[in-house]
Structure formats: structure tokens, C-alpha cells
């Protein structure tokens, strides 16, 4: 049997057959679902929390319309208002004693908060909230929204301007996004499209980083346990390198396929659930991930993996332990992170010359060209060009790194410096 195949098989199965792999593969989806579940639970619980509030209106004019607005705008599932207000009358001279009394009630949790609308609110545009928890962003925003509305209405009324007309004239505009593609024009949410591209690219980024480091660790572990030497007496260095890279890559790919399957199952199940329980949500324009994006996702993962895995394998061959590996690996890790950092620029200007150039650099292509493809900004010739460039890079890298690898795996002791490594390339 072919030796490379025997080596690949060992790398693959020695990883896939472990409990760690099983746990790692299942842990991620479980983790994601737990986080999502907790978030949903928090949200539905958090908004239903009722609050009992004291209100001191020193203007004497705002309270009724403010309370009415709050009551009608924020209600729980049974249509009862979320916030109950006690409108406390206060003369300016007794304000401080009143304030301290109510503050104590807040302290004792008899009430959830104290809202003070100062007399000069129309000029200063400020009001006060005294509460134990002042960082409930949603509640704060609700208060602000309601008061802004009520206060500006009163201001308008005071100046004798027709409120209805003003409201009509100052109505805001909403953005509706349409994605133009070969399949035609379709209404899609820009935010969701961005989210999907972002998530897929983030997965690519993590995968390149993690699997690359697995390869590196695999090489230096075999080296430091000296098993490398025995294998080397039976197989060539390039076969060992190929075994590592392909075997670990295969395990990674398997993990990806499992996750993709889980995502597909859950999202179709989720869609069914959504149309059953929230019929309105079905009309939300969620962009479907097209098969071609999936295809490019795997293509760029595989090509990118080969680029970075060869680099990481070489790093692994040069060191003996984790500490040396950490200190040597930063240039490669930096390349991956750099590609990730360019993401926002490319996402905002996917067709700029800079974005095109960046996405054609083979070390960045796996992230950036994929990103441009996923937002539909990459013409076919650029895609082709990036693929060709990446393949050429892989061939070149294998040539150079193979030489370093061959020498490196027999070197023990201190980690080599750059001139030494250059010498390995020349002499081997």
C-alpha cells in the first residue's frame, strides 16, 4: 500500500477516533444553541419584567401624556402595561426631602425607580432616573423615546405649530435593500446578508488558524517524542508532511461537514417552527445561501488550508516544544489575522481596486475573495485568477517548505534563526 496513504490514514483516524474529536465536534453546535437559547430566553424574560416607578413631574404638564404613551407603547403579552407610575406631587421647596424618601424606597426595593422631570426640561432637554439598576439599556431607551416624543409635542403646541403637519413633514425614511444578481432582483435584508458573509468568513478564519496549528503541533509532537525518526526510516519527509497535512485536513473537513449538516437540519427545522408559531416572520426576506457559495466556501477552505498548513507544518518541523512554537509562529498567524482585519474594508468597498488587489493575494484570498464572492462582488475571472494564484503558491510553498521540513525534523536543540533556515533551503 502507498506509504503516504498509510500516513494519512493514521493521522485521520488517530484524531477522529478520539473522544476529544467527538466532544469538540458536538460541543460547538451545542455551545452555539445554548448561547442562542439563553439569549432568546433573556430577551423574552427581560422585556416582560414589570416596573413600579415613582414620577415627580415638576413641570406639572408632562406626566399624563407621558404615562399614556408608556402604557400604550410597552405592554406584555396580555396587553397590560409593563410600567406602573405613581405620579408624586411635589412642591419645589419639599423636593429634597421627597427625593431622599423615594430614594430610600428605591434602596429598599419598594419601587424600581424614580423619574424626575425638572421644571426646565423644555430648555435643558434633560430628565433624571434614580434606580438601583441604571444599565437596562432597553428600559432607558424606552423612557427617552417616550419623553422626547411627549416633550417635543408639548414644545410644538406651545409655539402654536400644527403637530400633525410637523409629524407628517418630519417622518423618517427606511432603507429597503434589493440584491441584484444573475437570478434577478430580489428583496433582501442587507444586514442579514452581511451577517451570513461575516459568519462564514469568521468560520474560515478560525478553521485556518486552528487546523493550521493542529498541523504544527502534530509535527513538533512527533519530533519531540522521537517517533519522527522511526517513521523517517520508512517513509520520505514529503510523504510524512503530506500525511500530516492531508490527514488533519481530512479530520477538519469531516468536522465541517458534520456542522454544515447540523446547521442545515436546524435551520430548516427552525423555518418550519417559525412559520407555525410566528406566521409574520416567514415574510422576513432572509437570503438563502446559494449552493455556489457553499461550493466556494469549501474550495477556499481547502486551498487556504493547504497554504497555511504547509507553513505551519514547516514551523512545527523547526521547533521542539510549545514555547518555541509560540514564539516562531507569529508571522504566519499574523498573515491570517491581517486578512481578517481587511474584512471590513473589503465588505464596504468590495469593488475598489484595493479590495480586488488584496483579495488576489493568495494569503488573503481564502478570506477576502470568498467574502467578495459571497456578497456577489467578484467577477468570474478574478475568482479564477485567485484560485490559480493560490495553487501556484501552494506548489511553491511545498517546494520551499519541504526542504526546510526535511532538515528541520532531524534538528533538536535550540530553535533555528532565519539565516540557518535559509541555509537549509539552499543545501537540502
Amino acid at each position: 500500500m502507498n506509504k503516504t496513504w498509510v500516513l494519512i490514514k493514521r493521522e485521520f483516524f488517530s484524531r477522529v477516533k478520539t473522544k476529544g474529536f467527538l466532544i469538540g465536534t458536538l460541543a460547538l453546535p451545542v455551545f452555539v444553541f445554548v448561547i442562542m437559547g439563553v439569549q432568546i430566553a433573556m430577551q423574552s424574560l427581560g422585556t416582560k419584567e414589570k416596573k413600579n416607578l415613582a414620577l415627580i413631574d415638576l413641570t406639572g404638564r408632562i406626566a399624563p401624556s407621558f404615562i399614556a404613551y408608556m402604557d400604550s407603547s410597552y405592554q406584555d403579552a396580555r396587553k397590560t402595561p409593563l410600567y406602573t407610575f405613581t405620579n408624586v406631587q411635589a412642591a419645589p421647596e419639599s423636593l429634597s426631602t421627597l427625593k431622599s424618601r423615594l430614594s430610600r424606597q428605591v434602596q429598599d426595593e419598594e419601587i424600581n425607580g424614580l423619574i424626575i422631570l425638572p421644571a426646565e426640561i423644555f430648555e435643558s432637554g434633560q430628565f433624571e432616573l434614580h434606580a438601583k439598576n441604571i444599565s437596562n439599556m432597553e428600559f432607558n431607551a424606552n423612557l427617552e423615546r417616550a419623553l422626547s416624543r411627549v416633550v417635543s409635542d408639548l414644545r410644538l403646541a406651545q409655539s402654536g405649530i400644527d403637530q400633525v403637519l410637523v409629524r407628517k413633514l418630519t417622518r423618517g425614511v427606511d432603507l429597503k435593500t434589493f440584491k441584484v444578481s444573475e437570478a434577478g432582483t430580489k428583496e433582501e435584508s442587507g444586514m442579514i446578508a452581511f451577517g451570513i458573509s461575516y459568519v462564514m468568513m469568521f468560520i474560515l478564519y478560525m478553521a485556518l488558524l486552528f487546523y493550521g496549528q493542529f498541523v504544527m503541533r502534530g509535527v513538533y509532537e512527533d519530533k519531540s517524542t522521537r517517533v519522527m525518526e522511526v517513521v523517517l526510516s520508512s517513509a520520505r519527509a514529503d510523504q510524512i508532511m503530506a500525511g500530516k497535512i492531508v490527514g488533519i485536513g481530512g479530520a477538519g473537513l469531516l468536522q465541517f461537514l458534520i456542522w454544515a449538516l447540523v446547521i442545515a437540519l436546524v435551520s430548516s427545522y427552525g423555518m418550519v417552527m417559525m412559520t407555525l408559531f410566528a406566521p409574520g416572520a416567514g415574510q422576513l426576506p432572509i437570503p438563502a445561501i446559494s449552493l455556489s457559495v457553499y461550493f466556494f466556501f469549501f474550495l477556499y477552505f481547502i486551498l487556504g488550508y493547504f497554504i497555511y498548513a504547509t507553513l505551519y507544518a514547516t514551523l512545527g518541523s523547526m521547533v521542539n516544544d510549545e514555547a518555541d512554537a509560540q514564539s516562531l509562529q507569529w508571522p504566519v498567524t499574523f498573515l491570517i489575522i491581517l486578512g481578517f482585519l481587511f474584512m471590513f474594508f473589503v465588505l464596504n468597498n468590495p469593488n475598489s481596486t484595493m479590495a480586488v488587489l488584496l483579495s488576489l493575494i493568495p494569503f488573503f484570498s481564502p478570506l477576502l475573495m470568498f467574502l467578495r464572492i459571497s456578497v456577489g462582488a467578484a467577477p468570474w475571472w478574478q475568482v479564477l485568477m485567485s484560485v490559480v494564484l493560490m495553487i501556484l503558491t501552494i506548489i511553491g510553498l511545498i517546494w520551499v517548505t519541504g526542504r526546510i521540513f526535511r532538515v528541520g525534523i532531524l534538528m533538536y536543540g535550540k530553535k533555528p534563526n532565519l539565516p540557518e533556515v535559509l541555509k537549509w533551503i539552499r543545501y537540502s
Partner: protein
Amino acid sequence: MATAVAISGICKSFDAVHAVENLSLQIHKGEIFGLLGPNGAGKTTTIRMLLGILMPDSGSIEILGRANAREIPNQVGFLPEERGLFKRMTVLDILTFFAELKGLSHKAALPLADQWLERLELKEWRDKKIEELSKGMQQKVQFITTILHRPQLVFLDEPFSGLDPVNTNLIKDVMLELVKEGSTIVLSTHMMEQAEKLCDALCLINRGQSVLQGPLAEVKSRFGKNRCRLSYDGEARFLQDPKLVSRCDDYGQYVEIQPADEIRPQAILARALNEVTVRSFDITEPSLNEIFITVVKGSGTTGGDHE
């Protein structure tokens, strides 16, 4: 006798260090060949070149009729001095993996693996992970990986280190059996007693150069069968007589005397009886251990100008 390995004039240096200098040797088929030498003498580098892991800078190697062991990796077995196995694999997986790497099919490897586990008393550890095994057991497993595929040429680097006498015997028996069946074994060791018992021929390397080589019997006879051990009271001035004594080591309880050329031990005894009170006198052949120390010290101090 057919030649299994022939090295002529190989050199290998790393930067300024000459690891191996102009080394030549011949290993015959079916013999146990001792590659001996102190630490850092160049044994590992030599074995690596023989295995084709390293390429010599100059000189030529012929191994089982080929220029490079790389062409016939499946006929070669290698047990490195620094042991290492994949820690998280089971014993059986390790054995079949290395067997497959040596060209055997998984199916063919399985019964062989069981056979060897039985033979080396590791049967009940078959499905345990390597990391659960003791050092000695790991070493036996690694020994099996070296010979499972019935290699024609086996390189064993310190195969007995860390093994108890029982296991040492187990391994030794397997080695003798392999040789009987026509395999050739290159044994690299510091344990001169083992080498003395097992080796048919040997090469002593120091500072990358061969300082002594040949069949064991010949090497020993080269150092003479006429070592005299003398235990005495009195002042033995005759020991300084170069016409009589070519070399003398004082061990406290006795002195070991190498007579000068053409001088028979009897002549030394006669002089000793004349000058001192002799307590005991006997004639022995030098042990390999002694030869090793003598040669290494000698080549060390003289800068290794031996042939």
C-alpha cells in the same frame, strides 16, 4: 560471505563539526555487527546515513546491493536510541501502522502482531494505549515494530538499555533467531559485555573516525592474548623497562601489564620473582571493555591519527 553493507570513505559535517570523517567498513550478511563508540562519536549520524535519512557529503554507501536504503525501506528495520511511539495509539494499532508503513497489508500484519505480542509477553496489553505501558514494555513494543516485517537488515541502537535481565534475554534470543534466518543486525551499544557476547564483528568509532575494526576474535587477538595481571609487594622497577613492558596500568590491587613485542609473559614473571614478592600472577585476554577504554583514550589524547 556476501556483503550486506559496504561503506567507503564517507564524510559528513554539520557546519564546522565533522561528525563522520572518512569512514569505511564492511558488514557481512547474516552477522551481528557492533557499531561501538563513546557518546557523540558519530554512530547516530552513521546509522542515519545508512538509513538514507541523511546524505553523506562524500564517499559511497552500498546497502543490500543498492546505493541508498531509501530504495528498499521495507527491507530495513530501525530501532533508534531515543525511543518514541505515538502515545495515544493502542499497541495493536501501532504495530499494524508500522507494518503497513513497511508494505504489509493490514490483514497480513494482524496475525504477526499477535504472534510477537505473545512471544514478548505483551499479549494482555494488546488493546491498551502506549501511554499506559511502562517504559520497558514500550521498548519491547518498539522492538516489535522494528522487526515485524522481517527486515533483512536491522539497525538496533542500544536495544537493551533500561531492560531487566529477563527482557534482555528475550530480545537477545530474537536477535539470534533473526540472524540464524539470514538477517543482518547492526548493533550500536555502549554495553561492551553484550557486544562481546553477541557481535561477530565490530567497528569502534571515535570522533567520527574508525579507530578499530574487524571480526571480534581478530580484534581481540590484535590486542594480544597475553595480558598479565600481577599482584605484588615491593618496588617493581622492571615495570618501567620499555624492553620488557610496553604498557602498564596500575589498578591499586594489581597492575595490568602488556608485554613488549616478542616478550613472553613468562619472562615478566621471571623478572617479577627476582625483584618483588609475587602474590598472584595470571595471563588473560583483554576484555572488549578494556579495549574500548584503551582505544578511546588513546585516540582521544593523540587526536585520532589512527587508520
